[in-house]
């Protein structure tokens, strides 16, 4: 292998690794920021945790799942109807 080809190959490899690292870092940052933004958005809801729950006024049956049900202030089997998301002050 000539010297020129060797330099070309090494340069190409270095370039590819640098680009790869750059894309990876950008990708990770983007994922992390959207992930954290999502948590922040959910966490910024106004009622404090543990004393109060967000709850659902109406639910429908679904095996294997539970949801906090407003009228009873407790968990109940089923799925929440997203149109009836509410606050439950216990």
């Amino acid at each position, binding site marked *: 292998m000539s010297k*020129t*080809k060797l330099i*070309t190959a090494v*340069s*190409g*490899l270095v*370039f*590819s*690794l*640098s*680009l*790869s*690292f750059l*894309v*990876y870092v950008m*990708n990770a940052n983007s994922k992390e920021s*959207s*992930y954290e933004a*999502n*948590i922040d958005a*959910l*966490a910024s*809801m106004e*009622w*404090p*945790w*543990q004393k109060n*729950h*967000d*709850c*659902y006024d109406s639910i429908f*049956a679904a*095996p*294997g*799942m*539970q*949801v*906090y049900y407003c009228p*009873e*202030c*407790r*968990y*109940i*089997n*089923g*799925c*929440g109807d*997203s149109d009836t998301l509410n606050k439950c002050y216990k």
Partner: protein
Amino acid sequence: MLQIVRYSPFWVTMALVCSCSSEQSPELIFEDVTVVSETPYDVHVGETQKIELATIGCTDFTVKNDKLLVTTNNKEGLVDVYNWPEMEFKGSFIQIGNGPLEVYNQLFTNDFSYYTQDDDLHVNFYDGYTSAIDWNVDESVRNQKISMVKSKINLPVEDGGVISYSYLGDNDCLYRHISDDATSQIRVLSLAGGESSNEYIDHLNSVSIPKIKDSFLFNIMSTYTRVNKERNLVVEVPLFMNHINIYGIRGKSFAKSIRIGEKVESVKKLFNEGATGMQLVFYDARAYDDFFGVVYKDKYDLKALPVIYFFNWDGYPLCSVKMDRNINFFDIDFVHEKLLVFDSTTESLFACDFRLPNN
């Protein structure tokens, strides 16, 4: 330099391939994973027979011994009992209410634990408050009066947060409750009244979602939990992820995960997608003496019909049954060699001939 420019598309492609290969590792899974890309046998459903149900508002069903149990949304009679295969209606049992031996929630037969004692079919299930109930189905039918007793098992969980309950015989059970901050689901192995755990349960219990003010997203980690008491094995089938976990209890050393499909789902990824990303992957799971079965649907293929996969208790696939219609629930009548399937949206129950290959 010219050569670098000439080959630049190649290097750029390589760089992109390398950077895209990183994948978030799933959490609710064991180290030993069997990937299912195909099964030894593909069974196609043959001629089906529609089973007429007198019950209105059916939600699911189970066939055991000579009885077919159907759960309904009728609060005065949550479970209808039929003679099988004659399909003679034998009565409606179990009510919703606050009274003794009444239950809090609507019930599902695939959540029940079944056993036979003195030729009578017994059902053990969580009452939605703090106890388990033992129901003698055959005696109830004979006397046309509910025969139930409160079990000695207490489930000390406030606010009804027991999300899963499996009876292990005597006073033993495996139950799961939602943590106080609603970020995780805690499995508790209750043996002879004392709580117990093991490394597999501890691993699954350690998985959590970030702490947020929400009372539903913990269901990302929800599973159908089925138990094989004789083998001391538990199979957990997640509702929203494409893998299955099998693990040992009561001294049994075994832990394996089965993955169906190419893409790995993780709790973190599902959480990031929120409630709108919660699409069911598994619809049902049933455990039998020598194997278990699950109803799977590819959530990325909207036209896909459900497939029932059967696995032995070592976690290896036995066969798959491709459905020709939408179904959510299934069960097997081993005496008459029938596969029964149920679609809760149309409340239709069908039966077809079925024998597990080489079983």
